[in-house]
């Protein structure tokens, strides 16, 4: 197997793809701070539904449903873990840095700031797969913005 393939499909990614965390719709508890958005990648037909609970400016939790490739499943799974308990503004900033890591040549992700999300640095060698890694994030931002729909085609 080539090295960049090993960099793309790191163990952590394969693990989260096979056993996604925070998967499935949350229980309906009438919580007013619950927001939902649908994400769609028209290039491959992948769809994803994201549920996020925000209170006092903090992301209390996020869950997702859907089906997709290993990159998009693992990204959604790791994202739900990464954003939990973070202020909304910090979540948006985190997405900016996550996106930059995969798209900007020679970007040096700060391992401390991206934590586990740094496993996606290998995506940079596969530009066509960046949309797979960002679908969940686009959907999360749409939910935070109060929009129902997100697409990778913007």
């Amino acid at each position: 197997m080539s090295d960049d393939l090993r960099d793309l499909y790191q163990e952590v990614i394969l693990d989260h793809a096979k056993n996604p965390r925070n998967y499935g719709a949350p229980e309906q508890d009438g919580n007013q701070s619950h927001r939902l958005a649908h994400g769609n990648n028209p290039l491959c037909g992948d769809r994803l539904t994201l549920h996020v609970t925000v209170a006092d400016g903090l992301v209390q939790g996020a869950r997702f449903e859907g089906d997709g490739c290993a990159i998009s499943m693992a990204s959604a799974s790791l994202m739900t873990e990464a954003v939990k308990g973070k202020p909304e503004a910090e979540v948006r900033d985190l997405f900016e840095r996550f996106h930059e890591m995969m798209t900007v040549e020679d970007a040096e992700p700060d391992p401390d700031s991206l934590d586990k999300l740094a496993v996606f640095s290998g995506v940079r060698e596969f530009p066509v797969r960046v949309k797979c890694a960002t679908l969940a994030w686009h959907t999360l931002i749409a939910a935070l913005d109060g929009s129902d729909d997100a697409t990778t085609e913007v």
Partner: protein
Amino acid sequence: MTMAHQNEDMAYDVERVRADFPIFEHPINGHPLVFLDSAASAQKPRATIDALSRVYETEYANIHRGVYDLSMRTTKAFEGARDKVRDFLGAAESREVIFVRGGTEGINLVAQTYGRANLEAGDEIILSHMEHHSNIVPWQMLRDEKDLTLRVAPIDDQGNFLLDEFEKLLNERTKIVAITHASNALGTIVPLKQVIAMAHDRGAVVLVDGCQAVPHMTVDVVDLDCDFYVFSGHKLYGPSGIGALYGKAALLEAMPPYQGGGEMILTVAFDKTEFNVIPHKFEAGTPHIAGAIALGATIDYLNELGFDHIAAHEKMLLEYATERLTEFNSLHLIGTADNKASILSFTLQGIHPHDIGTVLDRSGIAIRAGHHCAQPVMDRFGIAATARASFGIYNSREDVDALAAAIGKTIEMFG
């Protein structure tokens, strides 16, 4: 495997054919290119590439208007290409061949001219469940404009076209049947002769999307008795941006023009314009001149190989690939119709087609992963996407072996 070897067409030298395609001289990700995506767009032989260069280097000028030698020579070559397409499709007359950008434009042309002029509210159009988006959306646009009904002819779980079910959909309101000759997602070849005879019995005209059929088999539009037939040059190993629409002369003559502009007129005054005769009536503006001429050269090249030999070679590849791929227990073939073009759509248990595509690419193997611009047929099988290997004239048994080995690696990696 021994059986397949015995079936191999000895008159067909795939290594010689490969040598005609310069793209194979360039490695991909450090591996020789194994190109299994010809159904999306085929690679080009040197004959096609040389024809394009030759036009621009030695005989290029605008056509149908110059009084000088160069323009007349270009016009002759362009019209010569039309004659080659006529013979390729078995059409009776060259004026029944309209040059278009590709299959998509050909279908839109028929929808927007014949469809607009002849259909009215309540009329019906029948499509099959395995149409490419390009043979769905133009009819939906017409439906919404004219308040028509679209009906969908079903397929079975193997992807076979259900002739009996199709016949039940026909009625006196059926005005157009728009149907693929061969499915790009499943490979299924539609029993066109029966479909066309049934449609004609009810007075409907039939448009055939031949994009996936012409690279694999001899087509005879007179024998089929279809009213319209479209194909794209780029899937036929020719240039992109050029294709052809065949239409019966009587229908084309009665149809209003598609786009307005130069070439499609006889006289223009501000109060009245007189349209040109077919095929020029439908060819507004300067066409892809070099593309059409190179398409003619491509057809010459394919005829030299011989479609009997091409079909036999691809049948051997399809059988061998089906045998090798079904060795994997977790591999599920989507589309196993009795009569198929050399297309293998498949899914792997627990592995998304995009991941398959990425892993295979690193071994130099190009396949298509996705919905193949045919989302309704993906929905029919309850999936979002498949991986698809499609075989062309330059593919070999070694390509199939490389595919099988890479699928094995993929399963190991994600297993």
